[in-house]
């Protein structure tokens, strides 16, 4: 029973120490953490019942901002790249958000998709500036002023990503429990009453949208320096779909679901691609089918059911946190 209770803490600890034992895993785990941040952004919007099929645009926008910064200021610091990526995606989120928060459900999802495909096309076609489909190289930035060797930098980047993921989880959890987060949830259940409380649903959704864009942007900056190259594929609709896929896999019931989903997704993808190169997408498809059919609340829901079973209490469906 205790093991179940402390399972999340044990897993977080395992993720933290695993790269020390298996160094090559840190690249995979860093990618998972970067994607987890973007998925956390998608989860914030799911709280309002809205699904974005275009959040990869913020992921790509900040990744390219890192590439441009490194091109213009060789040796720029990682902190600067991360901050610039957040500002870039947040600003883009505020501008696009002004349009998309007027719509709900399928229209919201499709409008996000449309904007993301516009960005994708720009990145793909403006090859004199963006390198087209070849993308742009991203040099290794300094880390708090230090010029680290590749292995050391990868380790530093992994632990920075882990720290940022933890900070993002804490912040989003606080946000979702605050009046803003509760109002965001109220958009899903009764927008009419929200308006009759004197609250603008659009403003609430816009704030959440900018937050989700910043989170996706943070993930994009990390992926850019982790991979050392950015391509338009980072903003392609398949990437946006991947974020939604991971959000469902992890479950939107808790902020940790985004990272649990991203870790499992990346590990399944990694091993499936290595062992069954031609059918790895099919394996992922079956994993998602299994989750939808047998654990519709995702990994978080599974964990809660397990915890309820261990404690002998009835499993309950808590409001999203």
């Amino acid at each position, binding site marked *: 029973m205790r093991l179940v209770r402390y399972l999340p803490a044990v897993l977080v600890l395992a993720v933290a120490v695993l790269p020390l034992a298996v160094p090559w895993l840190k690249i995979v785990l860093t990618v998972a953490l970067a994607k987890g941040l973007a998925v956390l952004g998608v989860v914030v919007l799911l709280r309002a019942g809205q699904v974005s099929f275009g959040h990869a645009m913020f992921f790509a926008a900040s990744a390219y901002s890192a590439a441009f910064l490194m091109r213009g200021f060789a040796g720029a610091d990682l902190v600067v790249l991360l901050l610039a990526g957040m500002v870039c995606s947040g600003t883009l989120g505020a501008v696009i958000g002004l349009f998309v928060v007027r719509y709900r459900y399928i229209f919201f999802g499709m409008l996000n998709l449309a904007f993301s495909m516009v960005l994708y096309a720009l990145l793909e076609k403006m090859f004199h500036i963006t390198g087209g489909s070849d993308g742009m190289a991203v040099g290794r930035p300094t880390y708090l002023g230090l010029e680290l060797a590749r292995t050391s930098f990868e380790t530093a980047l992994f632990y920075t990503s882990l720290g940022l993921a933890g900070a993002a989880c804490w912040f989003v959890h606080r946000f979702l429990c605050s009046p803003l987060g*509760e109002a965001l*949830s109220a958009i899903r259940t009764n927008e009419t009453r929200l308006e009759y409380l004197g609250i603008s649903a659009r403003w609430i959704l816009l704030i959440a949208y900018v937050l989700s864009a910043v989170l996706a942007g943070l993930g994009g900056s990390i992926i850019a320096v982790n991979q050392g190259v950015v391509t338009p594929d980072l903003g392609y609709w398949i990437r946006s779909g991947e974020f939604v896929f991971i959000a469902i896999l992890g479950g939107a019931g808790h902020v940790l679901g985004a990272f649990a989903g991203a870790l499992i997704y990346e590990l399944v993808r990694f091993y499936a691609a290595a062992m069954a190169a031609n059918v790895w997408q099919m394996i992922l498809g079956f994993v998602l089918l299994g989750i939808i059919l047998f654990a519709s609340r995702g990994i978080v829901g599974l964990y809660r059911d397990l915890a309820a079973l261990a404690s002998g209490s009835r499993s309950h469906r808590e409001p999203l946190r």
Partner: protein
Amino acid sequence: MSVTLLEASSLHISFGGVTAADGIDLEVFSGERLAIIGPNGAGKTTFLNICTGYLTPSAGSVRFGGRDITAMAPRAITRMGIARAFQSPQLFHEQCVIDNLLLAAAARERAWNPFRPLRERPEHDEMLALLELFGLADHAASMVNELPEGTRKLVDIAVALALQPQLLLMDEPTSGVSSLEKFRIMDLLVKALAEQGVTSVFVEHDMEMVERYADRVAVWNSGRIQSVGAPDQVLADPSVMRDVIGV
């Protein structure tokens, strides 16, 4: 001397061939409880919808506290001090009762600190006291969707009162409630309104409720106001009894 809080002048609105407001003129005075009666389709709810910004009249105006609110959005009107309770309770059904009220309190205070949980709001005790007033304190932690209709109607009114409005508009506050319960609910409601000094307008079909709880009554018929006055006078009018009540 009575102070006019809400003033509707020459309101007109039609839906296709149906005229729901045909030159409505009505004043609501500060501190009173005004009942609106009339047959179904007379335009009573339409009047509430116009006053709260859900509908914009094709002609005429609504003034609240001397300010024209005719074309304002519901949220702007709410912020000015008009709250509304609905015929069908409008609540956040995936949240518990106290969270519904606390969200209203946060909206009232415009307190949007993203680091402070809703349940740690300083208005927590105030909201519990409000629930106590309606005899709902035991339901504070209950999920809204698990409550019976009558209780949800009370919670809906409590949410509106949590905004500390100057004027509360209610659409059939006791419909769907047993005949034994409705007097108890209205007694609680009148007490709450008096404690907070809230002016109220309520749509009602039960003449006994009107006689007992309204200071004035306005009779709606085919989008027009047939008569306005003290309940004992209006309800004694044979034309009202015939045209509106059907007796």
